[in-house]
């Protein structure tokens, strides 16, 4: 009887794929020696001034267009004031009252169910540096290479109702930002990280008090952290304790969330417009220019896959999980012919995906070019290969054996036997050798028929066309 409704909103920090920082000309490349990419602006030497990186703005416009949001003709940068050694200025340059992107939405899919998650806003800001708390004679080490790296913080409305929906949203957003090329999506390196605001309430009741889980950098942690937090909050309330608003951290080792010790003033950021930066103007002409440079978006491509290739919505969504995957699939169709689209889809989502999964491989690293897979698909379509033989050809081509499907078929003698004379002869042999099975079949045992088919297939080492064997065998047994 204790029914609870879960309410989740996500804030995602996507690191933008620029060469240089958002307000300085220092490099953003990952993995440099400490402080080699921290210039005078990044370390906040006196007298320096920020100058906004045009490309960071282009990235924000792209996101805005991709989620159907409104892009502010004028937006304002603000100072978010707090003291921490990895923030040398004593404030983070962010956007507060007027962000560059407002509204918009993202469609997510949990199983067969589609749902729309509304976005509140997306704003540009700079990242902080990194504090290293290992032992430096009782001191903390500061690396400012990351300071000033451009981020787009994308904030949703509290529209998600389960950890599964939250993960589906995070995956859809991850797919979108990498698709439009504004973020490399590398979660290990922190290029895409989520904060989850979680609360619970009785259905229909006003929103409960939320707690914010910070810095989740994998989809698995996102799900685990939210699930733990939900259960914790429900237990607290059911035991008569009120939830206090708090920022919590997730510990992947214990699978638990715990409140950070925070000072009472921690959230008093005293935002105000940064006098060092003028308002950011984005003209309709600029938006149009950016729009022309956008690739076909996943949603549009999914709709096209359904209408042009007759795929299911689920298949279309799977094949557009990444732009590389979608391109592989379409390259495959170009070479195999549109009439074989469904077979191409099955092979890309089946054999190819399984192989990639097994070898934890990205599609860009797959040794089998889409034209080669298309070669296999064509030989299935014209009856040369059974599915079983096709898998053998796939294995061989994956291992780098043979220059294409036809070469492997030739070299290994894998041609499916479709020559009816040859099959006929084999069937006769098998019937003569298995009078008992023939008798049983005639007595009405369907199992006996399967045994006979098996014998014929065995005699051809799996190379006969199973449908053809079936048909001919039945005719023969019926006295034809």
């Amino acid at each position, binding site marked *: 009887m204790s029914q609870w409704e879960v309410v989740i909103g996500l804030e995602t920090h996507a690191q933008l794929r620029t060469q240089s920082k958002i307000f300085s000309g220092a*490099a953003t490349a990952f993995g440099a020696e400490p402080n080699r990419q921290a210039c*005078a602006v990044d370390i906040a030497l006196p007298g320096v001034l920020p*100058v906004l990186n045009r490309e960071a703005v282009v990235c924000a416009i792209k996101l805005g267009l991709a989620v159907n949001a409104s892009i502010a003709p004028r937006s304002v940068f603000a100072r978010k004031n707090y003291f921490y*050694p990895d923030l040398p200025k004593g404030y983070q340059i962010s956007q507060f009252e007027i962000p560059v992107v407002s509204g918009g939405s993202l469609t997510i899919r949990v199983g067969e169910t589609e749902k729309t998650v509304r976005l509140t806003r997306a704003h540009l800001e700079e990242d902080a540096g990194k504090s290293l708390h290992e032992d*430096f004679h*009782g001191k903390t080490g500061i690396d400012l290479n990351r300071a000033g790296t451009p981020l787009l913080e994308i904030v949703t409305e509290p529209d998600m109702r389960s950890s599964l929906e939250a993960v589906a949203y995070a995956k859809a957003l991850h797919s979108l930002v990498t698709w439009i090329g504004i973020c490399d999506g590398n979660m290990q390196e922190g290029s895409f990280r989520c904060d989850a605001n979680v609360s619970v309430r009785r259905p229909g009741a006003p929103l409960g008090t939320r707690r914010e889980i910070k810095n989740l950098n994998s989809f698995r942690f996102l799900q685990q952290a939210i699930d733990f937090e939900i259960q914790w909050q429900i237990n607290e309330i059911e035991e008569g304790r009120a939830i206090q608003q708090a920022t919590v951290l997730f510990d992947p080792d214990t699978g638990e969330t715990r409140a950070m010790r925070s000072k009472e*003033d921690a959230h008093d950021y005293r935002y105000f417009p940064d*006098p060092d930066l003028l308002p950011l103007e984005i003209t309709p002409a600029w938006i149009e220019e950016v729009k022309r440079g956008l690739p076909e978006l996943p949603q549009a491509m999914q709709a096209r896959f359904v209408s042009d290739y007759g795929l299911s919505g689920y298949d279309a969504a799977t094949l557009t999980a990444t732009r590389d995957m979608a391109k592989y699939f379409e390259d495959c169709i170009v070479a195999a012919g549109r009439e074989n689209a469904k077979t191409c889809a099955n092979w890309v989502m089946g054999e190819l995906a399984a192989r990639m999964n097994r070898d934890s491989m990205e599609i860009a690293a797959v040794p089998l070019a889409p034209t080669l897979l298309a070669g296999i698909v064509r030989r299935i379509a014209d009856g040369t290969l059974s599915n079983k033989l096709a898998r053998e050809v796939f294995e061989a081509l994956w291992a780098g054996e043979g220059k294409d499907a036809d070469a492997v078929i030739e070299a290994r003698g894998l041609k499916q036997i479709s020559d009816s004379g040859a099959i006929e002869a084999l069937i006769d042999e098998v019937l003569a050798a298995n009078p008992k099975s023939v008798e049983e079949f005639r007595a009405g045992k369907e199992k006996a028929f399967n045994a006979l088919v098996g014998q014929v297939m065995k005699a051809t080492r799996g190379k006969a066309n199973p449908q053809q064997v079936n048909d001919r065998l039945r005719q023969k047994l019926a006295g034809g």
Partner: protein
Amino acid sequence: MSLTLDDVRRIARLARLDVSAAELDTTRDQLNGILAFIEQLQSVDTAGIEPMAHAVDVVQRLRPDAVAEADRRDAFQAVAPETEGGLYLVPKVIE
């Protein structure tokens, strides 16, 4: 609007300013003086006027996305109080 001594203490703490007990009264009075000016400004009728985020009515100039800074770590760290292995060292930060 006028500030209390507690407000002054809180603002000082947020700004990491060490305002001594002896300075508290004067600081409060000076801040309240500034607030009085602002109240005067707020009495002006600004209905229908677009708020500005900057005193100058121009827009931000943008920089092309190119790496334009050389590595000057050695020069910067020569004037830092303490460094090790390329890191700036600061008093221990405890979460």
